[in-house]
């Protein structure tokens, strides 16, 4: 698609002494294990192509060693690829000069890190203002913006604390505020919530979704946690051994896993919180209650059991009735 915000095309990254020499082998399909055993090179990214739509939340999911953190670092070129193309707003990141690349990192992308990456010798306020200071903004301007974002992530009153005085969850709020403060429209989040306790993680996901509803940034979110991926992602790409195994919406991945690897992945998740009514529509619509097509099954069950003949009508985005769903189908879908 040409209107993609970020377009990754046939990206390869091989770690080792002579990556260019072994690249043809990888293109011919040599596996990651063979490449390591026979040629002493590590395959990081293997022919990844990904179009990321503007204002969407793209999740890249994979287990450790799948290359997801390597992939996200190619977007702002913290890592240079062995081969391939990365276009941001149609501009090739790999052809950028040093200063153009610096401007990309200053004004158009910002990043949140798994280990936070906060400056330990600066207080919260100065940490959040860091990106703006690097941009060359004045002290007053960057401080004003920093205070605004500190308030937005709920850290009012902690401006003068050092990062080491905060809990992990609070430190990552600082990281998030720092990334948002630069006003870049691409937000790269590298396992941003993975180091946090489950409860804090859920809370941070909520903050992110809430902010995103208003800010409409293009977010690339890396995670190893399927629940997190399904909750956050408009679109999810699953990575294994550096290659994309499947990509699509949460519902597509749960309903139609591409292979056994993914089927194994999704078998333990709560399907009622992923599948939406619209995907189960069949037959004619009954009279009575109408539910929107994007209702989660979990939320629809109560309505279904209360409806006459335990069947409800489903409407599409414009409010037009597209058919019906009955309770039995819904329960089957949850327990498939």
């Amino acid at each position: 698609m040409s209107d993609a915000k970020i377009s990754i095309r046939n990206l390869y990254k091989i770690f080792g002494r002579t990556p260019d020499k072994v690249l043809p082998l990888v293109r011919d399909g040599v596996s990651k294990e063979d490449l390591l055993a026979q040629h002493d090179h590590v395959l990081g990214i293997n022919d990844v192509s990904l179009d990321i739509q503007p204002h969407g939340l793209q999740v890249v999911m994979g287990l450790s060693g799948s290359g997801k953190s390597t992939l996200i670092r190619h977007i702002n070129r913290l890592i240079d690829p062995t081969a391939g193309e990365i276009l941001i707003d149609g501009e090739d990141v790999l052809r950028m000069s040093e200063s153009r690349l610096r401007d990309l990192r200053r004004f158009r992308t910002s990043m949140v890190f798994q280990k936070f990456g906060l400056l330990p010798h600066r207080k919260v306020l100065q940490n959040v203002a860091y990106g703006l200071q690097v941009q060359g903004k004045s002290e007053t301007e960057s401080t004003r913006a920093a205070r605004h974002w500190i308030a937005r992530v709920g850290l009012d009153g902690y401006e003068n604390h050092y990062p080491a005085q905060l809990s992990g969850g609070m430190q990552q709020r600082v990281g998030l505020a720092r990334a948002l403060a630069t006003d870049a429209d691409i937000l790269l989040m590298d396992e941003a919530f993975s180091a946090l306790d489950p409860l804090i993680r859920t809370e941070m996901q909520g903050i992110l979704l809430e902010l995103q509803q208003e800010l409409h940034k293009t977010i690339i979110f890396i995670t190893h946690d399927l629940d997190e991926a399904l909750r956050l992602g408009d679109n999810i790409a699953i990575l294994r051994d550096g290659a994309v195994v499947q990509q699509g919406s949460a519902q597509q991945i749960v309903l139609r896993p591409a292979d056994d690897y993914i089927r194994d992945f999704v078998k333990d998740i709560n399907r009622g919180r992923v599948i939406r009514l619209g995907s189960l529509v069949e037959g004619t619509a009954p009279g009575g209650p109408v539910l929107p097509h994007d209702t989660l099954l979990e939320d629809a069950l109560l309505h279904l059991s209360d409806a006459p003949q335990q069947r409800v009508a489903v409407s599409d985005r414009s409010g037009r009735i597209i058919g019906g769903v009955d309770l039995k189908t819904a329960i089957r879908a949850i327990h498939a």
Partner: protein
Amino acid sequence: MDFLTTFPSMGRADLAALRRGIDAGFRNFSREWGEAIEAFFHPLLMFLVWFDKLLVNTPWPVILGVIGVLVWAGSRSWVMTLGSVAAFFLIGYFGMWQDTMSTLAIISVATILCIAIGIPLGILMARSNRAQSTITPVLDVMQTIPSFVYLIPVVMLLGIGRVPGLIAVCIYALPPIVRLTNLGIRLVDRDVLEASTAFGASGWQKLWGVQVPLALPNIFAGINQTIMMALAMVVIASMIGVQGLGVPVLRAISNQYLALGVMNGLAIVALAIIFDRVSQRYGQRLQAHRKGHGQ
């Protein structure tokens, strides 16, 4: 069999000729360039003389006051401040005031010089592996070669006096600050540095905004070591005409004056302890952010 028991060394005559050749070469070099090099170091000498005079000629109560203020500013500890003033008072009471002031002058100038040369050198080493592999062996030589050995060419070049003494002190005291600056910068957390890169910081912004501030504890340890080593050189430097506490110590050695030696030795120790504690405390205070919870 002879071959195995006698080492196949250069002939005695050849060896003597070689040594004479090198000596003559260096003598010619120092005749030719000695004056130019002396002129180059002249501003340093002027500064050193001025600073020495300043310390010696300032009324002693003023000096005691300044020392008290400096120690307080560095350590924020009453015990240390009063202890330091008392130590200086005793030094003066036992008649070592003037020598102590001279020593203080040369140590201060040597430390400033070592910081001015050492920190940039350490930064250079941290940024380039080639610089590191070139400079490291030079530092090794500087630290291990007996000081008397490099006193010879320094004296041949510049004669006897304050500047050669200062150079000798610096050769000995420079390595720790270079090494620890390099180490400190190389130990900066990669994640923090990567974050700074990701936000588009330039090399300069990374150096002064992230690397140097985070390396400060190590840089401070380096400064502390440099001061200690400079003090250790006081006696040797006095052999080539540096005024200060080393001179009476030297006299005490050659005449077996026990009390004179011990008194001046203890004065050097007192200086060392004061410098060490104050610079350490100051270094710790720069690390306020390392304390965990609570302000």
